[in-house]
């Protein structure tokens, strides 16, 4: 995609991204403003809440690195949630539901990849179309209703603990570590860098780009399926619109984190900061009980400021 759309300014400093500055200010402000904010219980609370967004933002980082976009992520989360709920209720077990949810995500991910890589549709249009299809299927399958009566093991996932840590927080950390490992330590990761930055080199090296691109979108679908599982477990119900609009939060988290639409420039650390900045802003403003109209505007100010800090520190070209 050409300049202007999602491309952060050229010559950006490798140092601390703007979002880190904003995050620091938020942490300081909320710590002073609310005695509950720094309590361990609240910090775990924010981490748990950020897990779903992190699961979506990590693969979105990869997709954006390939000069792509996935607008269907939120709708696929909703559809996966509905399918997980339906299968769990019908079978009485969590495992088949889990596989069904991930399979749905995988299917949509592959479909997105095929539309983009093989048929050649622009990613924005392709995933806008699959957004409609996934949202429509979620409504049709559920009849527009949330699906309750899931086996009690399912809510145990979101509320569960392992080694004294809540599962969503563990999942968040594990997913980030796995993506960072895949990007920086595997051949797949270097191919992902090349997909965005130097596709020609990939071709010359004899690696066909299409299957790789499909794999990147498929990964996005699988993560949306897992996010749907986590959300379903949190709500104790399948919900046909639970994921609505989450793709934009994920894209915003990636962009404020400094990942560029060009040059295959991916920043998973920045993405994590972006996810936490969004989560902490909402949490802190709730603790301060700010009027909700101001909370809405604050989200926009955060996004613009984070990018602005970067721009102001970069000399004009």
């Amino acid at each position, binding site marked *: 995609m050409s300049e202007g759309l999602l491309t952060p300014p050229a010559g950006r400093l490798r140092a601390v991204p703007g979002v880190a500055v904003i995050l620091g200010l938020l942490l300081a402000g909320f710590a002073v*403003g609310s005695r509950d904010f720094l309590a361990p219980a609240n910090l775990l609370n924010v981490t748990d809440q950020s897990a779903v967004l992190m699961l979506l933002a990590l693969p979105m980082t990869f997709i954006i690195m390939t000069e792509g976009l996935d607008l269907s992520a939120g709708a696929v989360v909703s559809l996966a949630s509905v399918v997980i709920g339906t299968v769990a209720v019908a079978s009485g077990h969590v495992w088949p539901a889990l596989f069904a949810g991930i399979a749905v995500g995988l299917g949509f991910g592959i479909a997105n990849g095929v539309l983009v890589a093989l048929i050649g549709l622009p990613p924005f249009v392709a995933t806008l179309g699959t957004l409609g299809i996934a949202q429509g299927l979620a409504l049709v399958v559920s009849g527009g209703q949330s699906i309750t009566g899931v086996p009690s093991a399912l809510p145990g996932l979101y509320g569960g603990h392992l080694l004294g840590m809540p599962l969503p927080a563990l999942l968040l950390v594990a997913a980030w570590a796995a993506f960072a490992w895949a990007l920086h330590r595997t051949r797949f990761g270097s191919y992902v860098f090349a997909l965005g930055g130097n596709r020609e080199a990939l071709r010359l090296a004899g690696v066909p780009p299409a299957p790789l691109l499909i794999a990147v979108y498929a990964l996005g679908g699988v993560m949306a399926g897992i996010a749907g599982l986590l959300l379903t477990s949190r709500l104790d119900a399948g919900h046909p619109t639970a994921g609505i609009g989450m793709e934009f939060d994920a894209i915003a988290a990636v962009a404020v984190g400094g990942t560029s639409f060009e040059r295959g420039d991916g920043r998973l650390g920045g993405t994590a900061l972006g996810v936490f900045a969004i989560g902490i802003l909402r949490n802190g403003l*709730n603790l301060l009980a700010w009027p909700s109209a101001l909370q809405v505007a604050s989200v926009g100010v955060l996004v613009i400021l984070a990018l602005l800090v970067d721009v102001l520190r970069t000399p004009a070209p």
Partner: protein
Amino acid sequence: MRASILAGACALGLLAPALALADGETIALFTKNQTNPFFSAERVGAEKAAAMLHAKLLEYVPTKADSIAEQMSQIDDVVVKKPDAVVIVPVDYKAIGPGIAKLNAAGIPAVNITDRSADGRFVAFVGADDYHIARDTAEVLLKAMGGKGSVVILEGVPGSLTSQDRVRGFRDALKDYPGVRVVAIQPANYQRLQGMQVMENLLQSHPDVAGVMAANDAMAIGAVDALSDAGHKALVIGINATREAVDAINSGHMLASGDYNGFLQGCIGTMIAIRVLRHEPIESDVQLPVVVVTKANAAAYEAPVAERNCPAWQDVMRR
């Protein structure tokens, strides 16, 4: 506490929250969105009740309208903040269960208003029954139509409890009028523009429509505009008794609107929460009576919500 909030707000370089701090208990109120006048009436009612009883009210509304995931997060945050009591309209009555369980586990008493939650322990429920309001309002339309002709039904957001119950109420009322035919049931998502455009489209294939049942007033008024633009006469009913609908009823553009009285629900829900904390007797299930607003009784509905006052507790009990 107050000083620290102010310090935090100043540290962020922004203004302090506008909500006044009172001496009494802290009540957290959860509603579904910022855009439906019904919920804003509910919030005003809760504010009036809190002010009347010298309690402090905190309001939580999802920044994305009707987002169940965000309402869950807000409940998590409020459990950290530990208000004395909670008054809640669940975004989704089935999926809110784990959130209520958290409130229960934290020992924060909760009052459920408007949509009855399927799960969890509440000290009380306050609501008006969607089904009966819709049925009674439809009844007024069907009588005015003389028991014959075609009607269309405009649905709200698919999957919302309110829309399902209201449409069920419309359909059940129709059962007593076999001479009236339903020619189309289409969604307009509680939106005015969509109500108008769906009605325009339906008039193409069903120019004989004599009555319109809309699951809320915004869609009803959209339909009224489409009808008058096409030079077509049909009787229209809606639900919520918003100010605009009351005006339309007075000017003869709408026939009736079912009163769901968000203001009173907000008042009474908040009063119950405060009374529980003060160990005063309460009523654990308050069903507000059904009122259908027509030209005959519209005068009482003209006062803006902000100028109304909550009833005294004795009057609540007398209803």
